[in-house]
């Protein structure tokens, strides 16, 4: 039943509600969001709970095909790899390495990026010019190449990869946040606030930062898909996660030897990377569209 309204009253929805209303009708984006939620749950749960032990080698069940093939086993839905380890458990634990750690890396890069980006955006003159040129340099070096160099200095390993990805992601966050702040500073409401006597710090804290979440969340989705692909690529090259760790990229590299006998050991981790990145991109595109519509409405 509709609420009875006696008096005319202007009713504005909150910005988040508006965004959600524009986001919800986009089925593909919703689909991506649901997949991401499922993946996130798996990434959180899998270190504690698994169908089988992901590291347990079972010499009697080598290269069991997935259960949809005739000679597969129901208790091993995705089959086993060349050491008899359950692929499903490994893929689930891989979600927390490939997806969970990527989120952590990007979150870290985002926080530091907002801090330094605020510095870059609020300063002017020679200081900001030098800063921006250094950033331009860092942006031109490809992120994967930068990560490879950092790994070469620190030595291979999953943790070093995360540091490398974080550092490699940093310039684009600083650049993006800096540009967004510069754009905000041109807005009329910022000028009005300044005329009220607010200083730089007050403007940044109470006017600019609340308006920043929109570009930052877009940057976040873009950086997240790059981070997942980079972590997987480094793992595939053997520079990231090392052998027994079930990170998706290194799982593909491990399974290359048995690609003739067991194509699913290569196909499934790759498919999972693809689905993850695709859903992130779908959500990112959906957010972008929803924000555009909200601004127009």
């Amino acid at each position, binding site marked *: 039943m509709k609420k009875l309204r006696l008096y005319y009253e202007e009713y504005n929805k909150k910005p988040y509600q508006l965004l959600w209303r524009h986001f919800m009708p986009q089925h593909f984006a919703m689909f991506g969001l649901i997949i991401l939620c499922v993946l996130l749950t798996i990434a959180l749960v899998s270190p504690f709970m698994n169908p089988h032990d992901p590291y347990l080698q079972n010499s009697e069940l080598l290269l069991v095909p997935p259960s949809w093939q005739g000679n597969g086993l129901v208790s091993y839905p995705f089959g086993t790899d060349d050491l008899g380890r359950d692929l499903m458990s490994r893929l689930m634990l891989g979600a927390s390495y490939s997806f969970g750690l990527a989120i952590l890396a990007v979150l870290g890069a985002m926080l530091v990026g907002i801090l330094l980006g605020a510095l870059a955006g609020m300063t002017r003159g020679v200081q900001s010019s030098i800063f921006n*040129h*250094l950033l*331009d*340099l860092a942006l*031109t*070096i*490809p*992120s*994967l*190449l930068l990560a*490879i*160099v950092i*790994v*070469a*200095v620190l030595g291979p390993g999953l943790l070093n990869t995360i540091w490398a990805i974080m550092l490699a992601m940093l310039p684009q966050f600083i650049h993006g946040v800096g540009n967004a702040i510069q754009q905000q500073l041109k807005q009329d409401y910022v000028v009005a606030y300044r005329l009220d006597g607010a200083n730089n710090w007050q403007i940044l804290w109470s006017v600019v930062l609340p308006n920043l979440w929109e570009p930052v969340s877009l940057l976040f989705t873009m950086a997240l*898909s790059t981070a997942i*692909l980079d972590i*997987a*690529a480094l793992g*595939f*090259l*053997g*520079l990231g996660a090392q052998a027994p760790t079930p990170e998706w*990229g290194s799982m*593909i590299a491990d399974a*290359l030897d048995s*690609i*003739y006998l067991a*194509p699913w050991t*290569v*196909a499934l981790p*790759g498919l999972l*990377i*693809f689905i993850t*990145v*695709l859903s*992130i*991109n*779908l959500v990112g*595109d959906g957010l972008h569209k929803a924000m555009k519509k909200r601004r127009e409405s």
Partner: protein
Amino acid sequence: MILRYLARRLFLLGFVFVALTVFVFSLNYLFPGDLVSNLTGLRNITPEQHQTLQTSLGLDQSLWQQYIEYNRRLLDGNWGLSFASQQPVLQEIGRVLPATLELASYALCLSLLAGIPLGLLAAVRKDSWLDKFISGMALVGYSLPVFWLALICIMLFSLQLGWLPTSGRLGVLFEVPTQTGFIFADILLATEIDRMAAAQSAFLHLLLPTLILASYPTNVMIRFVRHSMLDVLEQNYIKTARAKGLSRPQVLYRHGLRNALLPVTRQVGLQFSTLITLAMLTEVIFSWPGIGQWLIDSIYQRNYPSIQAGLLVVSSLVICVNMLTEILHTLFNPLARKF
């Protein structure tokens, strides 16, 4: 005016190069191992040699002096030896760089040739099934991990169907002497072989890596061009042109296309760095003897002089291409000129 702009760009380029060399120079100290062998690439240095090398490299002087000495050696072409082969690093780079340039430039051309028309088509027929199909495919291609795609394609086209070779640049039957490093030029210059057959073999070897490498930039280009064209079509001058009585193709060609393609120049520069990164992965998978594979091998071998040199060359290449496209963009687009 334009000269002043160019001078400023050149100054910026110089600044960026100084920063880059400082970074690469500091890697000598950051890498594990002995500083002298990191700098020269010599292994098994005797204590007497160590002493003389330290003075000749200027290591007994201040850091600032060392950096200047380092730059002087870079300019002289004295980049040290590779740990693995004990060959001059610069010579090795000269051997592997053309293969990467070849692969990357074909992929870039392909991505432009395919990406721009598809993106325009999607933008012009906005919200039709064609647009949805192209955008959907672009999104899918944009999310595919390139190394996985390469493996799947090798499995399908090379192992199952047997149409294309799996690795290398040329069939082993052909003995083509390396002169320029670019395979087709070398085949043309070679005298004692069947050139047609060799060129065909080179083409078949090139086909799959180029397609794989081009997949990501093509999809980025489709998305970018579509977005740019849609932006332009919303502008007021398009409405004016329509109101003036121009037909749709006239509006699209004269006003839409020209303005929409302007930012593409800059995008090419930005894409180039991604392209080089992806080329490294593609080279590893297809055993393509380029700088990417060489660099990755150097990392496996802890070959620090080679890592440094590779980083320096690849970054300089990317920076130069970036700068060039930026200057071109400014020359083409009057709105971007902030003299």
